[in-house]
């Protein structure tokens, strides 16, 4: 048409320039380091200090780890191998290689290792419907019978002991169900009273009679394993998992009790929580292991692990109660009023409106308490149970072959504890994300 345009504008780009890379100082590792590590004089100093610290740790640990010995019969052999390799010091993992069953199972009989392992695997099956909403709901029935199953797998003996104990719970549920028709109060009272009466007076003889009726073989009977054979992570997990499972409901009840308008319930809850929180766990463990024996008639065998589980549960429940009370207090007053306005009674209001929100807020605190409790199970060493960290380690170290070993067992046990606790922590974060309904 005309070339005016061409004359007024000497050059017009008619294609896009290809995208250029950002300047090197603004991209990739360089940018990340500039922004995160070297963004100011203070950060430069901190970065240098951190690098120095990491270097110091690594140069101390690395040669020791690199000179690891896996095959040896004693610490002397380990030292010989390390010296032959021309190294000054090295890790002697041979002790773990030789004694790992003891760290995991304590003195649980070798040929029965499959039982705690099965119990642990089934634990995950039982937990699935509780922890993940995608798991099939029917599995909840399995979760309900799991405690009895785990007890039977771990301790063995007659299958009727856990069955009869679980029957007590079923009885309580049925009593609650039918009692409700008469009056809500009657339901609650019957639900508590009947199982207790059942366990106190009938459960023992019934289990014994049923046990005598049937042959002492599978599926009615399994080889008994006594509590003094428990040790290592079997012990830690038994105490930890039962403590966690029992302390959460108890903690919720206590938290609600503390918020209650009824004077007696409120003061009992407050007394219990404050007493337990005011006393160190070790005191409770000593009470369980030593003081109780003075009160019980001599000859009563009240299993030491059971005693410890009860004490640990009570201890954790008091803390859980306070964590949940924090969650309850954080709920706006309007939520309570909304529940009232809908005409819900107390239990429905708590179940449908208050607790789901309060528990969601409390998740990090609850999981922290659980993690703390699981680590606290190592304190049972003070009442003579063989916990993995010190009990088993001391026992292993007392053998002339391994006397003088120090870091390796601690690192091994620490690593296993880390796996469990880190998983719990990651799960709680997943749960928080899943339950997040606000738009922050």
């Amino acid at each position, binding site marked *: 048409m005309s070339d005016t345009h061409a004359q007024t504008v000497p050059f017009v780009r008619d294609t896009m320039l290809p995208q250029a890379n950002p300047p090197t100082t603004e991209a990739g590792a360089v940018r990340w380091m500039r922004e995160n590590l070297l963004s100011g004089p203070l950060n430069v100093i901190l970065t240098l200090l951190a690098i120095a610290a990491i270097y110091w740790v690594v140069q101390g640990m690395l040669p020791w780890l690199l000179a690891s010995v896996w095959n040896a019969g004693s610490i002397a052999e380990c030292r010989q191998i390390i010296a032959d390799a021309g190294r000054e010091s090295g890790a002697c993992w041979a002790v773990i290689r030789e004694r790992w069953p003891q760290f995991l199972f304590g003195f649980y009989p070798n040929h029965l290792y499959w039982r705690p392992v099965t119990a642990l695997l089934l634990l995950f099956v039982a937990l699935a419907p509780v922890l993940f909403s995608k798991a099939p709901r029917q599995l909840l029935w399995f979760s309900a019978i799991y405690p009895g199953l785990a007890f039977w797998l771990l301790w063995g003996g007659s299958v009727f002991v856990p069955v009869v104990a679980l029957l007590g719970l079923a009885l309580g549920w049925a009593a609650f169900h039918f009692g409700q028709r008469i009056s809500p109060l009657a339901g609650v009272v019957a639900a508590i009273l009947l199982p207790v009466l059942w366990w106190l007076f009938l459960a023992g003889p019934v289990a014994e009679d049923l046990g005598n009726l049937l042959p002492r073989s599978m599926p009615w009977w399994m080889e008994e394993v006594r509590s*003094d054979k428990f040790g290592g992570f079997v012990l830690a997990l038994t105490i930890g998992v039962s403590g966690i499972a029992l302390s959460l409901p108890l903690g919720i009840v206590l938290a609600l009790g503390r918020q209650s308008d009824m004077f007696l319930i409120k003061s009992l809850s407050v007394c219990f929580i404050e007493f337990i929180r005011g006393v160190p766990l070790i005191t409770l463990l*000593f009470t369980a292991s030593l003081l109780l024996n003075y009160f019980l008639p001599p*000859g009563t065998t009240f299993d030491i692990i059971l005693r410890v589980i009860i004490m640990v549960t009570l201890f954790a429940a008091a803390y859980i109660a306070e964590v949940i009370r924090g969650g309850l207090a954080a709920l706006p007053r309007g939520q309570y009023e909304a529940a009232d306005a809908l005409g819900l009674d107390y239990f429905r209001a708590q179940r449908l409106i208050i607790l789901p929100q309060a528990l969601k807020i409390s998740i990090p605190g609850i999981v922290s308490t659980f993690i703390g409790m699981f680590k606290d199970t190592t304190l049972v*060493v003070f*009442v003579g149970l*063989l916990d993995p960290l010190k009990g088993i380690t001391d026992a292993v170290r007392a053998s002339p072959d391994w006397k003088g070993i120090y870091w390796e067992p601690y690192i091994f046990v620490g690593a296993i504890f880390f796996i469990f606790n880190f998983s719990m922590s990651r799960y709680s974060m997943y749960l928080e994300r899943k339950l997040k309904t606000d738009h922050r």
Partner: protein
Amino acid sequence: MKKSAFLGTLTVAGLAAGMVSAATLDDVKARGELNCGVSTGLTGFSLPDANGVWSGFDVAICRAVAAAVLGDATKVKFVPTTGQTRFTALASGEVDMLARNSTWTFSRDTDLKLDFVGVNYYDGQGFMVRKDLGVTSAKELEGATICIQTGTTTELNLADWFKTNNLNYTPVAIETNAEGEQQYAAGACDAYTTDASGLASTRASFADPENHIILPEIISKEPLGPAVRHGDNQWADIVRWTLNALIAAEEYGVTSANMEELAANSPNPEVKRLLGAEGDLGVMTGLDKDWAKRAIGVAGNYGEIFAATIGEATPIGLARGLNAQWTQGGLLYAPPFR
């Protein structure tokens, strides 16, 4: 009415239970198992192996008592006890006897209501130093840093001894034996002090035992022995004389190997009485004639047990020293079996 009857039954049951508990022997027989309190793990004295089978010098006493009372050395439930729980475990009835290298002291015997039935190992507190420190006597430890377990009698002994000898020292507090070894080996302290038997096994566990010496001074008396509860003399007698039987057996040359033969044709009437071939000493304690034979049959006499668990042929390598028979210049002296 019903309630009071129930409470009354409870009281009677409680009383009966209380009376039963006075006779530990009957309890043990009824249970078919001896509950023996031991240390949670002490090289040479009590330790579980990879299969959870306990062995050691203290454990051997438990097994001997079990054999004497129940006729089976394996019928023992070993209850690991810590320094804090050991005496309460005994007093509360959780264990029938304690064989947990515990020092026999006045207040433990009286105030804590224990009965130490004898001494199975005469120990004493010693010092270990590195050879290149150039020290040959504990009196040269002026100004030294010393690793010491807190909350033990050894800590008090150390303070007493240094005060008596007008020396200064810097204590490095440690919690357990293992930690002490680690600290000492890492050079955190010049000297490590604990019972001499512990020092010997610690030294043996080092990579370079030849570079460490145990100083000759023993600064305290630590008679270690089995203990039972106050108030059940029959049971105390049984444990005491089982220990004495092991000691006497060594004195008279009775071993697990020649026991049967000596019982049949030993010229020494005391040996025959000990082994139940003459008289009925065992019956006087509420056991039978062969009790001592069974006890000795488990792992031999005192000398055999010593040699197998902590003696010079073992990695711990303890010499008999004070723990030799009185005829050999030691302190072991079993009263006559008559």
